[in-house]
């Protein structure tokens, strides 16, 4: 068993308002090092807003948040160096090849040429992409793209990786291979912060939070949540909470 003690994300009474609208209300939670943390919620519940704050892209209205020990108000550059991010919508440059994407992101994160070369060879081999390494990313099947995007998001060995709906539309076999990559990363001590609409994937998380109308309504292990809400599956838990 892995031992988890250190908090890598600490959020306390975090609030984000847009005019009169409160997108995030008093969010309070911690994520431990090496944990797979599922961040669930209905469309419009405030997940994206919260993720943008945690990634150092937006400033909160009030409250506190430390990401890898860095403050979301004052140390956003340090946060960005210590996290990886991928989403379903944006992750790779479609008109670059896999090798060019790796070189580009490696360069952005300041990796040395020799390290980029080493990482490229490793990634192509592990993902079985040698055959398509000279094709534009746009010509690759979605599942391959997403696996490559995850690898690219971890090139600079971040402490935390944010995955925003990484498996949407991906075929069921590749979706499971993707989760295998998540498990392996978590095993190496990387913290995973993931959103998904597939409720079976919620079961793969160590702990899950469920956001409803800007607030975290529940946060626990999938087993405890199912017990608490007298449900057989996380899908039932989600429906009970989100439908209020």
């Amino acid at each position, binding site marked *: *068993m892995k031992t988890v003690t250190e908090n890598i994300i600490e959020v306390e009474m975090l609030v984000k308002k847009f005019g009169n609208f409160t997108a995030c209300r008093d969010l309070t939670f911690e994520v431990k090092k090496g944990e797979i943390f599922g961040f669930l*919620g*209905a*469309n*419009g*519940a405030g997940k994206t807003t919260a993720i943008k704050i945690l990634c150092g892209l937006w400033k909160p209205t009030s409250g506190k948040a430390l990401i890898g020990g860095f403050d979301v108000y004052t140390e956003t550059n340090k946060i960005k160096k210590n996290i990886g991010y991928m989403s*379903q919508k944006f992750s790779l440059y479609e008109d670059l090849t896999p090798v060019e994407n790796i070189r580009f992101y490696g360069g952005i994160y300041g990796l040395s040429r020799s390290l980029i070369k080493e990482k490229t060879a490793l990634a192509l081999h592990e993902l079985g992409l040698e055959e398509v390494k000279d094709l534009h990313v746009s*010509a690759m*099947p*979605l*599942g391959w793209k997403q696996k490559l995007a995850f690898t690219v998001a971890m090139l600079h060995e971040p402490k935390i990786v944010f995955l925003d*709906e990484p498996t*949407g*539309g*991906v*075929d*069921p*076999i*590749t979706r*499971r291979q993707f*989760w*295998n990559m998540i*498990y392996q990363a978590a*095993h190496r001590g990387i913290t995973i912060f993931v959103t998904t*609409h*597939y*409720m*079976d994937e919620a*079961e*793969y998380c160590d702990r899950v939070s469920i956001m409803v109308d800007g607030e975290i309504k529940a946060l626990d292990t*999938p*087993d405890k949540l199912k017990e608490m809400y007298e449900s057989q*599956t*996380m*899908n039932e838990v*989600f*429906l009970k909470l*989100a*439908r209020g």
Partner: protein
Amino acid sequence: MNPISVHHLSKSYGNTKALNSVTFEVNEGEIFGLIGPDGAGKTTLFRLLVTLLLPDCGSAQVLGFDCVKDYKKIRKSVGYMPGRFSLYPDLSVEENLSFFATIFNTTISENYSLIEDIYKQIEPFKARPAGKLSGGMKQKLALCCALIHKPDVLFLDEPTTGVDAVSRKEFWEMLRRIKAQGITIFVSTPYMDEASLCDRVGLMQGGNILSIDTPENIIRKFPHRLLAVRSAETFRLIGDLRECDKINTVYPFGDFLHITPKSPDCDIPEIKDYLEKKAHQHIKISEISANIEDCFMDLMVGQNEEKH
């Protein structure tokens, strides 16, 4: 006459075969679900059937009309909701709806009973520009616009993609009420669990239809014995089971793993024994029947093996 009838329909984009000689029929009044991941060819098939694309070869009829020659007749009698939001973002909710009604030579009031149920939910926002609606409301408006001319067949391309579990459930409840009014529904989805909500489904992957039947029959045809396994350490359990020579496939499914034993008489205590020797705790193993996703993965693997 079946409302949709497709014969050896193919379509390529350059070297990519998007649709590979697909043949099937959709029965009148049914909800037919096309289930498959991104890149399976679902959208290409939709666009061919609603006459927005021309096939390379093969033929298709919608309501008895040919998809190439009779495109004007088809366009009049079908409703189409594309995967991407395609209403006018700077027109209001009401303006969008009356625009679509006018194009089809009808009025909102003429077929109001058909959309009443859904439209009531967005009516409080009828003056708001469509571009400023939330995802769920956009979807409801798009559905109203696709229904306003009382089509005989409704084409819905991935209406629930990226939509949360609650809104998905509500959407399928709306579809059942539309079906009850006698409209045939042709719908696609990447979510395998939505298969059970359809009367019949086609499982699609890589431009091919892998199987077509009622969800119950597809499940009945699953050719292996299936066991559900869990222990205290899922990740290690996956690795250990994949190494076990008595087991073929190991796939995580929520809080259990689904495994197929190589031999039909491999018994549960044997596997339990193997796992106990590997120091697994809280082991649970039980016999289960497959779900659509099990079937889909099995058919996918079969298709890949044929190719190689």
